[in-house]
């Protein structure tokens, strides 16, 4: 359902064709990295630290090397020795420990053998002498006075400090005068919020196949969000130049940010080089959960002031985000995501911590959901205390074009107000709250990014087209590329084949992240098509012996006054005689990624005897700029909502006191199943982004930001209990309800 009027209408953009890669995916024919098998291929297994923190005294691989079928063993000593200031140092040390194992599950060695069973047996025979070190497992432990150092190579980002520290980053920013803001306020609210680590939960475990040749070059087949980044990161970890590595993208079974970094490829390449055979390395689900990508645990205190007439005068917040075993930017992006309200006085302290837990990775609008939990809960309480509609309070304080973000950057044209109004006018918001249920609303913001993309469009001899990009398709982007090319060229979308090419077959392209593929790579496709149209006009002029200035391009054909139009197939059929094949390439570093706002509303019923929350109805509105393929925009809105709902209600990393994850399976790491959810009604708002030829805003990430506070606010409405810690699982909610009833 699309509510706002897009000022332009299109022939192909905004339609819902079947995706080009759809049939292969639903029939199981699509090839993911773990599906690939090479002649002579070995299987690899990883040796992982059983300690949360330990010095690696020595590693004896001799027994493993002597075992049947074993062809190669590698340890940290085989990898490039990067300086800790190298931007890929943490990634490289994370995929193969050097002096210290930094978390339970940290890889310390790897084995390649003829069969997976032989590799696993040999991995178990690698003898590692560990000297256990004190481990730091939580934010509170990391920042405690006299805490042991979790990672001796860590230096606090943005601090200038040169000594080891458990702080990953420290930032302070804001504007105005918060104290004056509190003085001007009639109501002041302050709370502390806590969230635990959660996983992206992609269905496909990390996997790759690497084949290193006698020429010292390696080919890697990998599932990733960006195969050019796989190339550069692998090159960095090995100390190789990029020309020695070719990465062929396999289909990807979900990433959500977690496949923007790498864990396996350099290990597989080194094993392949040593064994002179292809090597396949596939993680188990347990390995995925123990040693890849959790989103940071947080501790956030937030204090907000407002006047009786609803002006939010001040926000002051200290946000701790735990990066896990290495430094990172999670606290910074969390604080930066506070960008939805005018907030004349703002003071944010963003502090990242380092602990002996798995290195965190990006997760869909990284760090914004945790920050939104704090801010959107306080706004809800404010609305409650002021007795005003929670959407009206947000409308009163909402940012519009020209208002500034947390970093004091002015917002470009944005659709926050329109998105709030879409929910305010929705059937859901205007229907009565079911008996005994509670209704909650909350909003979310995400920046989106541009970055570098390349595209080539080739016209085939029969007038069909191939659109070649370097953006892995994690959310239907192939279909979006084809739709934009169809619109530009005036060619039916089923005559266009969109492909994702390897690192040697298309120009450099950054990772599919920041909701950028349809925006930035799409813009490269549009630019290439426009270049191609100029060529088509030139060919038409040649065929008809007129000046190119006399040729117009209308609806997929060259139009010359007084003559029959020349269609693309007619022009390509004569390409050989008019200058050869028609092809065009465009590359860019895209600027002007339009931020996307989302507003969600949920009705929940809480069983006050068991603490179970049932979501009765859920509606999510989001500004897509222009929805190129509305079905996939709705899919992104729904997918983000569902991940946020899981995060809110049941998902959590449970560590024991030794830092071992106790629930490293999908049985006990409780993501929502289909029957846990109502249909998520998606409302697409279209406030076109002026920086994109079709007005695209990235839509992949924002949808995960509002669900946590939306459900917390709905639960508060249903029970009167304010949940300030995640997950709001039945035991925690029942304990809170019981405590509240007793007080």
């Amino acid at each position, binding site marked *: 359902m699309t509510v706002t009027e897009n000022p332009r209408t299109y022939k192909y953009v905004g339609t819902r064709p079947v995706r080009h890669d759809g049939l292969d995916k639903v029939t199981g024919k699509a090839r993911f990295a773990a599906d690939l098998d090479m002649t002579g291929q070995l299987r690899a297994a990883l040796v992982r630290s059983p300690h949360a923190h330990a010095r690696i005294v020595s590693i004896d691989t001799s027994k493993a090397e002597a075992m049947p079928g074993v062809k190669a063993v590698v340890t940290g000593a085989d990898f490039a020795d990067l300086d800790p200031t190298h931007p890929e140092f943490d990634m490289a040390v994370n995929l193969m420990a050097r002096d210290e194992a930094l978390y339970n599950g940290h890889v310390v060695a790897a084995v390649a053998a003829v069969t997976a069973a032989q590799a696993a*047996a040999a991995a178990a025979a690698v003898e590692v002498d560990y000297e256990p070190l004190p481990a730091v497992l939580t934010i509170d432990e990391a920042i405690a006075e006299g805490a042991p150092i979790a990672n001796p190579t860590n230096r606090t980002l943005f601090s200038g400090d040169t000594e080891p520290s458990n702080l990953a980053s420290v930032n302070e920013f804001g504007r105005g005068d918060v104290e004056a803001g509190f003085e001007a306020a009639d109501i002041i609210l302050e709370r502390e919020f806590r969230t635990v680590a959660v996983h992206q939960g992609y269905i496909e475990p990390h996997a790759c196949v690497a084949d290193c040749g006698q020429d010292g070059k390696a080919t890697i087949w990998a599932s990733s969000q960006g195969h050019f980044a796989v190339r550069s990161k692998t090159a960095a970890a090995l100390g190789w130049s990029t020309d020695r590595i070719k990465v062929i993208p396999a289909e990807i079974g979900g990433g959500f940010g977690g496949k923007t970094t790498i864990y396996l490829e350099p290990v597989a390449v080194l094993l392949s080089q040593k064994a002179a055979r292809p090597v396949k390395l596939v993680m188990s689900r*347990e390995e995925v959960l123990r040693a890849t990508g959790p989103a940071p645990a947080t501790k956030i205190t937030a204090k907000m002031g407002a006047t009786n007439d609803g002006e939010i005068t001040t926000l002051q917040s200290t946000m701790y985000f735990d990066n896990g075993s290495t430094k990172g930017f999670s606290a910074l992006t969390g604080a930066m995501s506070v960008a939805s309200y005018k907030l004349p006085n703002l003071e944010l302290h963003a502090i990242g911590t380092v602990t002996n837990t798995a290195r965190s990775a990006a997760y869909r609008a990284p760090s914004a959901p945790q920050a939104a939990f704090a801010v959107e809960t306080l706004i809800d309480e404010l609305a409650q205390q002021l007795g005003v509609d929670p959407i009206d309070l947000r409308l009163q304080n909402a940012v519009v074009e020209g208002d500034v973000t947390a970093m004091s950057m002015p917002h470009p044209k944005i659709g926050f107000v329109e998105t709030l109004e879409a929910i305010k006018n929705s059937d859901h918001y205007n229907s009565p709250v079911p008996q005994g249920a509670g209704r909650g609303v909350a909003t979310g913001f995400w920046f989106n990014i541009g970055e570098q993309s390349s595209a080539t469009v080739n016209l085939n001899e029969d007038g069909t087209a191939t659109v070649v990009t370097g953006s892995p398709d994690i959310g239907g982007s192939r279909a979006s590329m084809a739709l934009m090319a169809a619109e530009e060229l005036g060619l039916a979308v089923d005559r266009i084949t969109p492909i994702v090419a390897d690192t040697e077959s298309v120009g450099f392209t950054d990772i599919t992240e920041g909701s950028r593929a349809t925006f930035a790579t799409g813009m490269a496709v549009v630019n290439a098509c426009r270049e191609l149209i100029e060529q088509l006009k030139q060919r038409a002029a040649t065929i008809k012996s007129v000046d190119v200035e006399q040729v117009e391009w209308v609806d997929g054909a060259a139009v010359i006054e007084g003559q029959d139009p020349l269609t693309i197939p007619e022009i390509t059929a004569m390409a050989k005689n008019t200058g050869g094949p028609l092809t065009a390439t465009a590359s860019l570093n895209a600027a002007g990624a339009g931020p996307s706002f989302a507003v969600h509303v949920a009705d929940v019923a809480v069983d006050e005897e068991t603490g179970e929350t049932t979501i009765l109805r859920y509606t999510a509105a989001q500004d897509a700029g222009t929805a190129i393929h509305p079905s996939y925009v709705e899919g992104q809105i729904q997918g983000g909502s569902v991940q946020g709902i899981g995060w809110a209600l049941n998902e959590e990393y449970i560590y024991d006191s030794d830092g071992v994850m106790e629930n490293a399976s999908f049985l006990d790491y409780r993501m929502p199943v289909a*029957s846990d959810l109502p249909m998520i009604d998606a409302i697409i708002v279209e406030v076109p982004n002026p920086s994109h030829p079709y007005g695209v805003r990235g839509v992949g990430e924002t949808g995960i930001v509002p669900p946590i506070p939306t459900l917390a606010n709905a639960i508060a409405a249903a029970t009167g209990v304010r949940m300030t810690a995640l997950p709001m699982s039945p035991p925690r909610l029942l304990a809170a309800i019981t405590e509240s009833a007793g007080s």
Partner: protein
Amino acid sequence: MAQYVTDFMRYAAPTTTDEAVELLQSDPDARVFAGATDLIPQIRAGRPEPSLLVDLKRIERLVAVSHNNGTWTVGAATPTSALTANPEFSAAFPGLSEASGLIGSDQIQNRSSWGGNLCNASPAADSVPALVVNDARAVIAGASGERTADVADIVTGPGETSLNDGEFIIEFLLDDPPAGSSDAYLRLIPRTEMDIAVVGAAVQLSMDGDSVASAKVALGAVAPTVVRVPDAEAALVGSTLDDDALAAAAAAASAACNPIDDKRGTIQYRRQVAGVLTKRAVQIAAQRAKGAN
């Protein structure tokens, strides 16, 4: 760290109980399986592989369901989907049918069985409390012939059973419920399916008009084995299920719990919810029993 490791296991699919007994005698590392819905994940998670797997599903008696002379005979390897889809069985034992229908997903239901659910000996097995309140008996095969035992006596602790080496369950026996009686099973999981019980409560009631003639209450996932709750049963018998009786039964259920704190639930939560589910299951069973009068 879990790795999928396999050497070649031997696999045998006997067609008679005698053949199965013989196979089990031949190899001390042999293991029987019915649906293997627990066994396969356990092996994939790194448990040692048995040297010989004995598939019981080809033995006719183990996958047969019959109802003769007031007794139901259910083969131990019968897929639970065959029970939930059996209207006569589900009408006689609605709670047991519901419990059987909660094991895993639809696909799992086509493999999972009472025999496997019981002998895997998980404290959280859904079918077991419902079997216990219905006084189910197990017919057991072994080297010295067949014997019969109460289901309540099979599981002795997590992963432990009273079966001797080489024994396996052939079938379960259930007497028709008396007139005016019925059962119910409720479990709590944080999700709506595909999960393991944090608490399970089974109740079987016989009603005499509005008052309770007899009651059986059994709880799962709150102790090392399924626990019967005689105090809850005593609180219910003779009552008209007034609020005091229900509260007393709930309190007795909470008190009977001997749970652990783990990743699936806390001690306090399990105690509290055991009472809640007991009370609710009693009300459902009573409604059904009155309908059966």
